[in-house]
């Protein structure tokens, strides 16, 4: 059913959908890269910084583009006009993941930012590991959201 809907999607929905999907892909890529760089840093300050800056400069902009696109496509498709209980499950999963993901990402960036500052004194790797754990959690939740957006469970 979802694929049949995809075929009949109005053309004017395509660009907002493209923005939403591209932002989500950049978010997932930024989370994977940032978390991996910190995970394999083994205390190396350069790799820890690379991981943190990837979360800040790739994952965060990715979330902003994804969220902007989500609001845009949601308005275009008319989901905003429906009461919350009338919206399909997959939309609910999307919002349930997107908003806490922003909060978690900000917490991760704050912890990581303090960690990066402390690297100058030879400290801070613990805070960056905490930022990494949060990034893995967001990544796992984001993949559930991708599954829901694509498979559209009801």
């Amino acid at each position: 059913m979802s694929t049949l809907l995809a075929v009949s999607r109005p053309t004017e929905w395509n660009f907002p959908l493209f923005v939403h999907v591209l932002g989500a892909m950049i978010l997932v890529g930024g989370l994977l890269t940032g978390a991996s760089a910190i995970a394999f840093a083994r205390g190396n300050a350069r790799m820890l910084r690379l991981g943190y800056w990837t979360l800040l400069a790739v994952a965060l902009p990715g979330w902003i583009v994804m969220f902007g696109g989500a609001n845009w496509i949601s308005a275009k498709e008319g989901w905003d006009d429906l009461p919350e209980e009338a919206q399909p499950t997959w939309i609910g999963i999307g919002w349930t993941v997107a908003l806490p993901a922003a909060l978690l990402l900000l917490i991760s960036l704050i912890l990581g930012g303090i960690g990066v500052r402390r690297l100058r004194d030879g400290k801070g790797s613990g805070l960056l590991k905490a930022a990494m754990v949060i990034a893995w959690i967001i990544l796992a939740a984001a993949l559930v959201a991708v599954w829901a957006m694509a498979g559209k469970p009801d």
Partner: protein
Amino acid sequence: MSFDDWILALHVLSAFAYVAGIVLFWVLVVAVRKTDTPDGTIRMSPVVKVGNASIGIGVGGTIVFGIWLAFSVGGYDIWDLWIIAALVLWALAAATGQRTGVEYTAGMTKAQELRAAGQDGASAELLAINRTQRGLQMHALSSLIVLLILIDMIWKPGA
């Protein structure tokens, strides 16, 4: 969810893995341009493996699940213009991606040779290899092709 819905979800998840891998390699391409020591280059190896796994899942998953959907879902046919375009672009992306890998593996190989020879300091030769222009161009081309696949998947020209 129907079986085809599951396959579609896996197809899209594979596409995310593919782009995540490309993003990861963009970060490494930028990072390695300032890396002139064997240790700094070799340290990126585990992250490269994560990127390779992600790209591998993406390349394999998009084609296998995509072809399944082309045959299984009503309204789509394997000879549809947008599906043929996607298959051609997929092959081009795989080829340019493989070429990118060859270019950047040279830096990793050189770093291992230098370390084996006991040369742990900065190396202008290693830096030059890590700054491969051909590798950068191939990765940019590969990224552009994958972007075109995404556009093709959303707009579905001719569908």
